[in-house]
């Protein structure tokens, strides 16, 4: 996997910073001056320790029903109103608070109608952000702006995007805030996988993001499963190491049988990952014109003539960083071929309905990048390919909607891999601190988000790009 580089490289690669960072003294000084150690994020399939607060505006019901489906107990919110305030020792008014730390606030604003309704959001958020536990969660559920016929609620709904991103920036100690936009027809069953993901540690490095959950048919037991991939076959490209290996392991943990794919030269590492999770290995250069045929053939060969892939995770990617001034056609094409053209070709083959291809009701997940969303110096080729993945997701999702195939992507920020570990200390510090969580993400954070997106219970999530960047300072 490529190193996910942050455009703040501009600062970190100045000759002075570079020199200081590489020297042993500089490193020691940097440590002593005390860049504080990053908070250990809550990860995995774990709910917050403290209670989950549910605050619903007017008659909004979807969050309550979804939490009931997930069997998450909720408590009532503390609301900051002038009457509820007390006078503190200094004589200043003190807002009402919770008796102890809360684990999460789920704020259901689907009943939003007027600008004045936003006061409810403020009143609930103020006590909540003061009492939120480390790695706590704020989840705002609102109707998608375009789903309103009337002007005012649509305008306000869009305003929540700014509110969410700000809450995310103000939260501390690994707590995150995210905004989910739903349609009026979105059912609790369709929302369940998203709400569970956001409350659980699996969403550790997803912060300040907003995405859509559309209406979709999801059965109760599917919505509530912790092993959603049981009996399902998933292909992961670039599975030998780094983020790809984490994806394979995470999907296997959730029940998937994984077909791990990587270039023949990475076969040894691939075998080790695949054996660990009892999958199968396919040594394949995905840029071959018949790569899709070979994947389908492998699936049929190993899993039977009627076997089909439930999901394809297009993780394989390369970087060939050069400033445009130094970029020749080879460095340009290599990246575009692996990161983009190969993916388009494989999709075409795997989507033609053949045995061993992608099943209807399945899922495709691609990997975009902060670089693609914000642009990055020295990565013209990479950024082009990664922005194109956003385009692919948006274009393909509606085309495959009739076959109930979802198409989504993740957009990783600075993820700590073997490759990024090689970046000099100070430079690395700058990269990984330039986000609201003040730390780099782990490969598993990207993997968890992919597993959520491709989850059968996430049938209502399609055409979305979810960034896994700790709310990086750059991009959206």
């Amino acid at each position, binding site marked *: 996997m490529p190193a996910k580089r942050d455009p703040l490289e501009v600062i970190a690669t100045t000759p002075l910073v570079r020199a200081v960072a590489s020297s042993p003294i500089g490193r020691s000084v940097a440590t002593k001056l005390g860049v504080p150690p990053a908070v250990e994020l809550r990860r995995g399939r774990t709910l917050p320790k403290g209670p989950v607060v549910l605050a619903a505006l007017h008659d909004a019901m979807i969050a309550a029903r979804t939490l009931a489906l997930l069997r998450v107990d909720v408590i009532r919110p503390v609301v900051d109103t002038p009457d509820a305030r007390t006078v503190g020792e200094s004589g200043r008014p003190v807002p009402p608070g919770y008796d102890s730390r809360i684990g999460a606030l789920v704020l259901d604003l689907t009943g939003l109608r007027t600008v004045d309704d936003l006061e409810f959001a403020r009143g609930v958020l103020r006590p909540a952000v003061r009492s939120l536990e480390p790695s706590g969660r704020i989840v705002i559920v609102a109707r998608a702006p375009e789903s309103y016929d009337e002007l005012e609620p649509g305008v306000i709904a869009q305003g929540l995007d700014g509110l969410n991103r700000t809450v995310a920036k103000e939260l501390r100690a690994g707590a995150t805030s995210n905004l989910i936009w739903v349609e009026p027809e979105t059912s609790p069953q369709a929302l369940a996988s998203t709400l569970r993901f956001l409350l659980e540690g699996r969403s550790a490095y997803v912060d300040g993001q907003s995405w859509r959950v559309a209406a979709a048919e999801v059965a109760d037991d599917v919505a509530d499963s912790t092993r959603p991939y049981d009996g399902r076959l998933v292909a992961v490209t670039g599975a030998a190491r780094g983020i790809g290996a984490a994806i394979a392991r995470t999907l296997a943990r959730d029940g998937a049988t994984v077909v791990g794919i990587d270039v023949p030269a990475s076969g040894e590492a691939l075998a080790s990952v695949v054996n660990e999770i009892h999958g199968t290995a396919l*040594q394949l250069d995905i840029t071959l014109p018949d790569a899709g045929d070979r994947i389908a053939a492998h699936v049929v060969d190993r899993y039977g003539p009627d076997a089909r892939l439930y999901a394809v995770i297009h993780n394989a990617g390369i970087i060939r960083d050069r400033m445009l001034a130094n970029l020749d056609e080879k460095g340009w094409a290599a990246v575009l071929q692996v990161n983009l053209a190969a993916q388009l070709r494989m999709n075409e083959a795997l989507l033609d309905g053949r045995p061993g291809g992608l099943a209807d009701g399945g899922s495709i997940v691609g990997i975009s990048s902060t670089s693609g969303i914000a642009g990055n110096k020295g990565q013209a080729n990479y950024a082009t390919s990664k922005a194109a993945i956003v385009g692919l997701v948006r274009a393909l999702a509606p085309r495959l909607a009739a076959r109930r195939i979802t198409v989504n992507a993740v957009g990783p920020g600075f993820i700590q891999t073997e490759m990024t570990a090689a970046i000099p200390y100070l430079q690395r510090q700058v990269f990984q601190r330039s986000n609201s969580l003040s730390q780099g993400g782990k490969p598993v954070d990207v993997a968890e988000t992919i597993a959520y997106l491709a989850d059968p219970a996430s049938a209502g999530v399609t055409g979305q790009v979810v960034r896994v960047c700790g709310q990086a300072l750059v991009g959206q």
Partner: protein
Amino acid sequence: MTDHTAVVVGGNRIPFARSHGAYSRASNVDMLTAALDGLAARFGLAGHRVGEVVGGAVLKHSRDFNLTREAVLGSSLDPHTPACDLQQACATGLEAAIYVSNKIRLGQVADGIAGGADSVSDTPMAVSDGLRHALLAASAAKTLPARLAALAAIRPGDLVPDPPGITEPRTGLSMGEHQALTTTRWGVTRADQDELALASHQNLARAWSEGFFDDLVTPYLGVTKDQGVRADTTLEKLAALRPVFGRGEGATMTAGNSTGFFDGAAVTYLADADYTAERHLPALARVVDAEVAAVDYTIGGEDLLLAPTYAIPRLLERNGLTWQDFDLYEIHEAFAATVLATLDALADETYCRERLGLGGALGEIDRTKLNVNGSSLAAGHPFAATGGRIVATLAKLLHQRGTVDGRPARGIVSICAAGGQGAVAILEAC
């Protein structure tokens, strides 16, 4: 008893590396384990209890008495998988495949893995008999004086370590020296040997570039390709090499047309045909039959490396086939001259009548069907690993051919071995 058919499901090996190079710190157990793990990953065998794993090594440490079982325990296979060590010099890998396929055909196992590993880099070295006898006597002695007396028997010459023999114990000749005698006897020319070596390199290089080995080889310790293959070699370059075996006119065998020293491991996955259908495993080729023969090279003065010429006619007769009935021939290239002498012998009226007791010569074969994706001269020859390499390669080639003239494509493997032995097997495409 129901009928059982043994088929080759697939294979895996690590790239063969020049000795004292990339694998110099890897033991036979390490390499065999890596080969098993690559196979497990390819066919989803992690945690699976295989019927039996059978393999061996020619150069084997005494501590590796359970080499194959140790490799199984170190691999991702279910530790309940039994294993057995088997050794037949360079035919080890093929003999292991014959053993496993026989068990499958008897219904004793549903699947099995056959293979072998060899390291010239990690060769065991023994102490001399003098030192060994003295040490054993000293350890058996009950008193200190008796112990000292036993140790006093050690002579300076006893301290020289005893490397493993690469010579035939009964003749004192090396394999190359034996082949040189055969080469001279059969008048195999330098030009023919070099031409065969060139074809081996060109064919193997082409197979690699076509991705033929993508599902037969798993990289190991950073080596991603066979190190012996020289895509750029030419007849001129081969002709320029100095002979290393034979004397005078008969000195035609060079480092270019003889196999060098290599480290490596290879395994083949075999299973009952019904079992492959149940478990959704591919079936590349059916193991039809096999035969092992030996020659009297000591008193009888027969050619040490031509034992396959005895095995082949017996195998053909039992299966009602002629020497020309094959679409692919895989004859192990111990030396280019071994292959050529084997073909010459089987085409020789006198040899076939007098030595083999046949009614006449078996005749010539179509040489374009021989070692079509290269063999040991290019791939290298880590002794016990060669059988696994050839069986998997041939099975895949046959599967690719599918049917020829309305019948399954048919191939034959022939491997000569030290001790004047030779193993031969017939495979048919599935």
